[in-house]
């Protein structure tokens, strides 16, 4: 017989009380686990969707000039000392510290060409990464797969009078229009897209690019840091965050996270209150028992150890069960809460250990006063009979 036997026997033989206490704390922990997991899973889902929508970092050549355009209306500009980015240098972007956060890099080469009687802007792209980044593009016909295939903006298609399947010549090279973009309302409507190597060849810019768009996954990655890291790797380039995209994403997620933390705080408070009230009730109910312990020579610290050990055991159990129940709740709720159907639950050992640790901390903190109260009981008062 040791002190822990007293705690364990009390818990074993007062199953109803123990179950009530465990359930009280478990519900609190489960709610927190569900909220945290749901938030994270939904955040990840939203982030993934957002990341699929365009770039949030722009890599352009260093220039001493200022662009003179607003809302798509260009007034020309004064640019001198124009530098260009070498395509091979772009590989260095993948070597930054936060390289795992880079979703897509889409290099582009731009240049004016003449098709028939019209001047158009030719954009050389990597179609695979471009289509991944611009998921709002709707292509009539086929997305280009071969080097000699083109994709036309809706306006360009009209003006050039070219439709999918038709052939054309650009600077002596034969091309086929694979597809035409549905109207986007952006600059893309008036562009002609070709594969990057072909465009570089036509524009005489082999191995060089005009700009690169980077889509970074925002979860846990400060875009500002990534901008600095990329700038260090490409000293001749100007790297900037597309602030409105970044801010928009972060704001939406922050709002969501704040809401769930507020909910979690309320639940934590209620859970602690349940433990406190139950432990206090249990101590008051056990007044005589504590009086006996004191009378037969138990120190105050012995009484505290008995009460706190009970609280710790119940809290640990509540932590384990709460984590399980919380994850089950999140799994059930996620399909109804997430935007996309393929949102997946995030299993995080941090949440598992965190919830068990939180249950233990809450249980012990909420039981501290009841334990102190018990240890300070006057044995004579407690026993009354004496």
């Amino acid at each position: 017989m040791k002190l822990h036997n007293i705690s364990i026997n009390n818990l074993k033989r007062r199953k109803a009380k123990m179950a009530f206490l465990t359930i009280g704390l478990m519900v609190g922990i489960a709610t927190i686990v569900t909220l945290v997991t749901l938030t994270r899973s939904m955040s990840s889902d939203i982030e993934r969707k957002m990341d699929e929508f365009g770039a949030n970092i722009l890599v352009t050549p260093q220039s001493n000039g200022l662009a003179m355009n607003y809302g798509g209306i260009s007034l020309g500009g004064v640019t001198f000392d124009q530098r260009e980015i070498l395509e091979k240098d772009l590989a260095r972007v993948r070597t930054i510290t936060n390289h795992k956060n880079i979703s897509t890099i889409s290099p582009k080469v731009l240049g004016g060409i003449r098709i028939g009687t019209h001047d158009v802007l030719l954009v050389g792209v990597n179609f695979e990464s471009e289509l991944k980044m611009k998921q709002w593009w709707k292509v009539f016909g086929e997305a280009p797969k071969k080097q000699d295939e083109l994709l036309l903006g809706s306006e360009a298609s009209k003006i050039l009078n070219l439709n999918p399947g038709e052939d054309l010549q650009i600077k002596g090279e034969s091309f086929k229009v694979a597809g035409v973009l549905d109207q986007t309302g952006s600059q893309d409507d008036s562009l002609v897209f070709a594969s990057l190597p072909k465009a570089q060849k036509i524009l005489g810019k082999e191995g060089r690019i005009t700009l690169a768009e980077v889509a970074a996954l925002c979860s846990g990655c400060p875009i500002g840091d990534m901008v600095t890291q990329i700038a260090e790797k490409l000293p001749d380039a100007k790297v900037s965050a597309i602030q409105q995209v970044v801010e928009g994403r972060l704001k939406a997620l922050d709002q969501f996270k704040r809401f769930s933390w507020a909910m979690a705080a309320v639940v934590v408070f209620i859970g602690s209150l349940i433990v406190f009230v139950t432990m206090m009730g249990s101590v008051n109910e056990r007044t005589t028992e504590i009086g006996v312990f004191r009378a037969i020579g138990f120190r105050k610290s012995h009484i505290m150890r008995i009460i706190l050990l009970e609280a710790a055991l119940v809290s640990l159990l509540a932590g384990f069960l709460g984590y399980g129940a919380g994850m089950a709740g999140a799994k059930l709720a996620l399909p109804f809460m997430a935007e996309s159907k393929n949102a997946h639950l995030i299993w995080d050992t941090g949440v598992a250990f965190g919830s068990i640790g939180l249950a233990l901390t809450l249980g012990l903190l909420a039981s501290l006063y009841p334990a102190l109260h018990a240890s300070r009981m006057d044995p004579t008062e407690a026993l009354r009979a004496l």
Partner: protein
Amino acid sequence: MALIEIKNVKKHYTSGDEVVEALRGVDINIEKGEFITIMGQSGSGKSTLLSVLGGMNHPTAGEVEMAGVKLYQLPGEKLADFRAQNLGFVFQSFHLISYLTALENVMLPLAIVSVSSAVKKDSARTALERVGLGSKLDRLPNQLSGGEQERVAIARAIVNNPHILLADEPTGNLDSATSEEVMALFRELNDAGQTVVMVTHNPENGAYSDRTIHLRDGMVV
């Protein structure tokens, strides 16, 4: 020198504006191996005297010396340690722990002693055998009769071989036949050398003791 010396012990309580003088200068000496009964009417101060004697109730004035130790001069938790090592308590309502078996209840005072579990179990079993409950070790209190519960309480009080066994109305909740059995058990323990101090209001119990101290209005008469 007596085993217990109670010198001019006073105990005053305040109840609202009123000061209640539960003990008004009590002097008692108890020798080793004695069986003392303390008798008196309700409110005479006998239970207060027992709690003061048991190191659980600081007297307002006076001194309690036990085996050469001045109880109320012990610092901090040393008094609790003294109780654990030298005193055994038997309460009127038995006060067994409902979720512990008879054996576990008896082992309770040993929970804070550093000896092996086997030694604790042996000591508890021996104590229960001494009170005639060797066959009911694994029963919970609610599976035992009143007399049996009292015996478990006595076994718990003697398991750590205390200098003094203190009992507060141990037969108060028992029928007369069971009371006689329990008193015979106290007598038996005393015959084996155990010092016993018992508070009772039943004059018949006095017959089992060596000496009876009568209290009235907080004083020995």
